């Protein structure tokens, strides 16, 4: 019998986990020895949840090969469903169990949203898919932003008009107060939990990529017609990858909502600009490179803190780098030049050695 040895692929995977764990250890030490400014401390959890969404989005963009601009919408679903569950059960369940269940509910509901949206969206591809996911993200954000939800002894009250239109009993509890959002969600998430969940999402995505399902998804990305002709159920695998990707974004949303005092469904948190920002992380980390997404999200989120003077120019620089990276990596002309350049270097080395 052959000894089971670590393949090259899984060795790389463990390097990713090790990098995340090491970063966690360093930051935790800095946190407890007071080496970190309070502003920086506040950035740790967001850094982790944006890394999680980036991992999820990379599954969609890099592995499935479809550009989604609606992942902020899935984050929104996860954030609000998780927050509502925690609000309703506050004081009735122990803290840890409550957050765990909130997480499960947020993930399930955002997976459901991903599944339902995937049905019409995944019939499209390319530019159309990108715009329709953007549209769905905005629809989710706008509907939740206009939603009033309350609970009293008679049950749930829903309105899209105003708080008064809910017709609540005086002792009832307002859950979502329209554009004012959700307040009083227990502050259950912290940096360690967020990192554990980041590792969890990495394990899920990496295992998915290395599995038979993942290879099927990648074959669809590389050539849909060829994949279909060898009997791969295209719709099923596209749905699977898209739903998992949405669920991971929802998980990040639950962390988000349990880390913020007032949860509002505004463009600042859940607009398509957020989806684009995460896309920037994915592209600069390398499309299809999961480790790259985590590193890019962490560095690009933290960078403005380290380079305060550059903060004004940050987005401008990101956009220029984004365009440059795309042209360098994808333009046929650039690829040809690059190959020729490296060939010449290789030849030069060989000649030098001989």
């Amino acid at each position, binding site marked *: 019998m052959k000894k089971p040895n670590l393949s090259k692929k899984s060795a790389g995977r463990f390097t990713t986990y090790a990098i995340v764990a090491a970063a966690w250890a360093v930051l935790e030490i800095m946190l407890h020895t007071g080496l970190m400014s309070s502003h920086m401390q506040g950035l740790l959890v967001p850094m982790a949840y944006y890394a999680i969404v980036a991992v999820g989005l990379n599954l969609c*963009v890099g592995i499935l*090969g479809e*550009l989604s601009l609606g992942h902020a919408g899935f984050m929104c679903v996860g954030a609000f469903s998780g927050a509502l569950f925690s609000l309703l059960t506050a004081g009735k369940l122990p803290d840890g169990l409550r957050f765990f269940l909130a997480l499960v509910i947020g993930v399930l509901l955002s997976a459901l949203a991903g599944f339902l949206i995937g049905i*019409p969206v995944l*019939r*499209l591809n*390319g*530019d*159309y898919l*990108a*715009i*329709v996911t*953007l*549209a*769905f993200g*905005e*629809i989710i954000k*706008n*509907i939740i*932003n*206009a939603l009033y939800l309350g609970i009293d002894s008679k049950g749930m009250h829903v309105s*899209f*008009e105003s708080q008064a239109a809910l017709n609540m009993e005086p002792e009832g509890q307002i859950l979502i107060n329209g*554009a004012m959002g959700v307040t009083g969600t227990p502050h259950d998430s912290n940096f360690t939990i967020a990192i554990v969940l980041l590792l969890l999402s990495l394990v899920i995505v990496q295992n998915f990529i290395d599995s038979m399902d993942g290879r099927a998804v990648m074959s669809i990305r590389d050539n849909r*017609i060829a994949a279909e002709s060898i009997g791969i159920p295209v719709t099923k695998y596209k749905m699977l990858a898209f739903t998992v990707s949405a669920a991971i974004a929802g998980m990040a949303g639950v962390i988000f909502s349990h880390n913020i005092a007032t949860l509002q469904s505004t463009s600042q948190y859940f607009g*398509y600009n957020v989806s*684009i920002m995460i*896309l*920037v992380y994915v*592209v600069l980390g390398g*499309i299809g490179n999961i480790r790259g997404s985590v590193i890019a999200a962490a560095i690009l989120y933290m960078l403005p803190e380290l380079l305060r003077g550059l903060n*004004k*120019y940050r*987005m*401008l620089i*990101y*956009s*220029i780098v*984004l*365009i440059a990276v*795309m*042209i360098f*990596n*994808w*333009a*046929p*002309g*650039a690829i040809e030049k690059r190959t020729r350049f490296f060939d010449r270097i290789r030849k030069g080395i060989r000649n030098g050695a001989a």
Partner: protein
Amino acid sequence: MMSFFTSLVNGLSLGSIYAIIALGYTMVYGIAKMLNFAHGDFIMVGCYIIFVFSSSLGLPSIVAILVAVVLCTLLGITTERIAYRPLRNAASPLAVLITAIGVSYFLENMALLIFGADTKSFTSVVPWSGIALFGGELQIQGITIVTIGISLLILAALQIFVHKTREGQAMLAVSQDRGAAMLMGIDVNKTITLTFAIGSALAAIAGALLASAYPSLTPYTGAMPGIKAFVAAVLGGIGSIPGAMIGGLTLGIIEILSRTYISSQLADAIVFGILVAVLIVRPTGILGKNIQEKV
């Protein structure tokens, strides 16, 4: 009842602006086969140029608009040359879309850096106060009439240009089959450059009208109208010039009516809901042709 007509007229006005933007979108999409995500930001650039030249430097608005049209045209041509053309034959169709998103990001942040995030109030380029109908019950603003008139004029001019001139015929040929057009001796690069020039010039005009009707200017002014104009182009049938007009008007009217009668917060959701519905029921839009995908 009069309030309904007022909404309808406002809808027509907004719809005409969407239509002008959508015309640019649909031409670029039809001919260069790419979604120029930055198209909306060209509008914003046009607005800021007019703002600088008319409000700050005190030039007559017509001169400011001409300057904006010229500069936006140059911007469109430059963007296409630097950012989009190298990626035209890229292995992944996502490459050029992501680059376009990068261009959009770049323009927004450039404007943010130069003009700041605060809202600039834009003086209308149309000084005419408008007309009152039915004994003053129905007020139609000058900008509304001018907007609707200009959009019809542009539609007619584009139709004549595309169907009657050699350059327009070349555009049609490239949009139908780029390879065959090349074999017929059509300069594809030149045609695509011309398309970008026209689309960007239209964006500048749309910017002047948009900022006159909704006079608050920020670096993000163009983003949402740009996306909605894409929805309008899809609704009318992407690649079709009359389709863009119909789609734009329909979308503008639906948006204003839902803002008035349903909910101002849900209006955007309704507009995007239409996009989803159209793509499910009739993916080629109202006037689009159904092209079979061949293996």
